């Protein structure tokens, strides 16, 4: 189904075998320092327990990952000063002391025993403070993680006019919280695991028990468990590693930075995968139609949303086919162009040096360059680029006689329509495959285009996302799911969840619908 990353066993500085913590504190500290290569952000603090000089305690943490005040107040403060009178003149048993500290002294919510050095490193590097007691063969990790984060800000890539503006941020916990706040259901379950030999990235799988399909959940876990890779820096890594089919330009996993759209997906029975360090959350199974839907569709009125969706399908086709249709019509099927238009197109072409196909290729390529440059450039220069672009592909190229004015219209039409698609990854795939379509059109005209379309549709139909056919509910046709594909029927008519990944299909109580019906009937009477 998908390929596993081969891990290389050698060149691993930290030994694979877990070693238990030594009873000797100095030895431990030495080992940690040695293993971390004397890294400058490692802070080691040894101190004596409240006036008991015979008991040495070592505190290790990574500077910047922990909450400094918490360390000072709840760890150092508790151990060094508050216990002043507790141990006076008592012979202290080390094990007793360890338990005592863990259970009665540390005023910190999360304290865990260490299982060995690997565990120690995992905690240390995740931002826990490590407490080691001399002559005791165990240590504890105190969870006082805190680091700088961006906080919850407005969405940057999936904007809406109406609807919540908040977006996920880079912290996993914040992200799960944003969803949890929307769905206060005990059945909303989160399973966390770490992936990445080196990065140990936290991955959380979230779903609503009983709504999501058990098989999909199992499949998600199976695929995640199979991943062996050294680093996960973004959810894109996970996406590529767990998708069904590798050789396809189309995304088969949905991603979103909007908590409301993830919550909606969970409620439909999908499974969300959160990855620490990125605001983009993955969601499976993902269908083709999903990439043409915006969460705003559900916040606007049904009729408006339906019209907008139809518009999106049309623009999708346009961004795919307009240049190739132009090529096919002007170089193969001139009989289809009305005579006056043909004359004006022909007169435009009199002076242009390149064949229509090359002309289209140049222009589309120029547009892609401008688009990419527009994203990468600093914001200050961005507007300059758009001016240059407008001049280059608009006025000047036509004035210089390099391209015909009609081609400018074609290219700009393609460009604008490709930006209508809500999901960037779908828009870019469509933009990519329009080049082969142009080639087909230049070789065979409309026959080439229709051949390409057949191939494309068959390819789309052969895809599946976690066992769900990608083109559902069109192919296979699912009658019940048509309500939320091209159409978006009013909320009071959306009674069932999508049928393809359902467990519990009823979405609304039937009475709710009756209520609405009655209400509308009453309205009818009044008018």
């Amino acid at each position, binding site marked *: 189904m998908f390929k596993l990353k081969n891990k290389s066993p050698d060149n691993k500085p930290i030994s694979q075998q877990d070693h238990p913590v030594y009873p000797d504190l100095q030895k431990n500290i030495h080992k940690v320092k040695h293993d971390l290569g004397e890294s400058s952000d490692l802070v080691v603090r040894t101190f004596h327990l409240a006036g008991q000089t015979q008991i040495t305690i070592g505190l290790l943490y990574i500077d910047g990952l922990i909450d400094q005040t918490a360390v000072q107040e709840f760890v150092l403060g508790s151990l060094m000063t508050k216990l002043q009178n507790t141990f006076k003149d008592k012979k202290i048993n080390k094990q007793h002391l360890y338990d005592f500290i863990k259970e009665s002294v540390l005023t910190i919510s999360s304290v865990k025993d260490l299982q060995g050095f690997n565990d120690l490193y995992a905690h240390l590097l995740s931002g826990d403070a490590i407490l080691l007691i001399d002559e005791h063969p165990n240590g504890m990790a105190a969870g006082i993680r805190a680091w700088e984060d961006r906080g919850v800000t407005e969405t940057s890539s999936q904007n809406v006019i109406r609807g919540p503006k908040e977006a996920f941020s880079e912290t996993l916990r914040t992200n799960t919280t944003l969803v949890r706040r929307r769905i206060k259901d005990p059945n909303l379950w989160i399973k966390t695991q770490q992936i990445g030999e080196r990065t140990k990235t936290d991955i959380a799988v979230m779903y609503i028990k009983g709504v999501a399909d058990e098989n999909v959940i199992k499949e998600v876990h199976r695929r995640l468990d199979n991943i062996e890779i050294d680093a996960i820096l973004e959810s894109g890594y996970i996406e590529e590693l767990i998708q069904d089919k590798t*050789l396809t330009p189309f995304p088969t996993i949905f991603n979103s930075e909007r908590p409301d759209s993830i919550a909606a997906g969970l409620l439909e029975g999908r499974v969300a995968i959160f990855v620490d360090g990125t605001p983009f959350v993955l969601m499976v199974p993902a269908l083709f139609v999903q990439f043409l839907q915006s969460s705003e569709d559900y916040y606007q009125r049904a009729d408006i949303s339906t019209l907008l969706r139809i518009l999106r399908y049309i623009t999708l086709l346009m961004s795919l086919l307009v240049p190739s249709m132009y090529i096919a019509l*002007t*170089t*193969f099927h*001139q*009989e289809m162009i009305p*005579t006056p238009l*043909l*004359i*004006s*197109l*022909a*007169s*435009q*072409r*009199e002076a*242009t040096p390149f*064949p*229509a196909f090359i002309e289209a290729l140049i222009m589309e390529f120029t547009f892609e360059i401008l688009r990419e440059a527009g994203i990468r450039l600093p914001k200050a220069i961005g507007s300059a680029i758009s001016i240059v672009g407008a001049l280059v592909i608009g006025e000047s190229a036509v004035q210089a006689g390099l391209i015909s004015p009609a081609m400018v219209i074609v290219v700009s039409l393609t460009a604008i329509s490709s930006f209508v698609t809500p999901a960037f990854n779908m828009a870019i795939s469509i933009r990519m495959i329009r080049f082969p379509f142009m*080639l*087909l059109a*230049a*070789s*065979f*005209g409309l026959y080439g285009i229709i051949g390409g379309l057949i191939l494309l549709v068959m390819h789309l139909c052969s895809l599946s996302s976690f066992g769900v056919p990608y083109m559902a509910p069109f192919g296979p046709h699912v009658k019940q799911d048509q309500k939320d594909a091209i159409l978006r029927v009013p909320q009071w008519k959306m009674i069932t969840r999508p049928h393809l990944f359902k467990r519990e299909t009823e979405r609304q109580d039937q009475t709710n619908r009756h209520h609405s019906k009655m209400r509308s009937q009453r309205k009818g009477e009044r008018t």
Partner: protein
Amino acid sequence: MKAKQLVAILLFCAPLLSGCWDKVELNELGIVNAIAIDKANNGDYLITVQLLSPSEIASQYPSNRVTAITYQATGKTILEAIRKLSTSVSRRLYFAHLRIFIFGETMAQEGIRKSLDFFYRDHELRTDFYLLVAKHSTGANILHILTPLEKIPANKIYGSLKYSQDNWAPTRTVTIDDLLDCILTPGKEPVLTGIEIEGNPRLGKTTENIERMQIPAVLKLTDLAVFKRDRLIGWLNESESKGYNKITNHVAQTVEYVNCREGKATFEISNLQTKIKSKIVHNKPMMDIHVSGAADIDDMECKLDLNNFKNVYMLEDRLNKKLKTMLVTTVKGTQERLNSDIFGFGDILYHHHPHYWRQVEPRWDETFPETKVQVTVDIQVRRLGTIIESFQ
């Protein structure tokens, strides 16, 4: 494995994509807008094509160069002549935007059937162009006349043909489908609209024709050319042409006047509907033509009290009588003068009385002139215009 397969398929496709055999760039096309076929002196076909010059037509800065160019070639067959044109035209002739197709008069008299095959067989030609016959002229001469209002001469003909059929009625738009249908169907003969040059043809060929306000040569659509099988045998006059169109139910609107005391009253007739029924009386075919429609008074020259509905009835009656005479003379004239079943009486017989038709078909040429025709006209005057009584 998958990747290998893809590479293989791409390799397969590579030779396929290398050629684009049918590709023609727009600037390689010579868009043929009109074509004329004449007989050359030695009996060959003489083909005249009118090509458009797109840059002149669409240009925003008009020069005084002409917008269309004609080329000529002769050949033993149509296709040979067309291909011969390539020696003088620098572009590939493209026929899909053909608008007008003109037969020279002598050509039409000798038969048009043989020359039509190519134009229906070739895939590039569409079926939406109109066919015409040059009256007292060759087709080539017609195409040489420059037209002032339209940049493209053929569009002038195309436009006036359409407009005239809709609003005046002596002309007829005939496509190749209609023509072939008439030629192929027994008991139905074709007609084509005629076109002639009025004025000085020599001046009409020069740019002087588009520089003067009163132009020296005008292209004018005239009457209908009547064919027998595929040969031109005569012409209908204007009134007969109008009558013909009314009988074959091809008139949407027309104008007709009647005399009243010292002036004339003109009607605009609309919703003309003609039904032809056939009967067999004493083993002789009899056609029953029924025309119905509505008329509005548009122009009233005589003093007549239209408040009195009897006067309106009187006018209505005169109108009906006039139309009836017109139709009857049309049919009579055709039967006696031309003996060509352009009305499709034979076809109507075939549809209504197939057995009888089979008997008469061999001697239809003799039977047609003797076919009795009964005409009833039932046109009602509806509206009188914005004023009732004339101010005469």
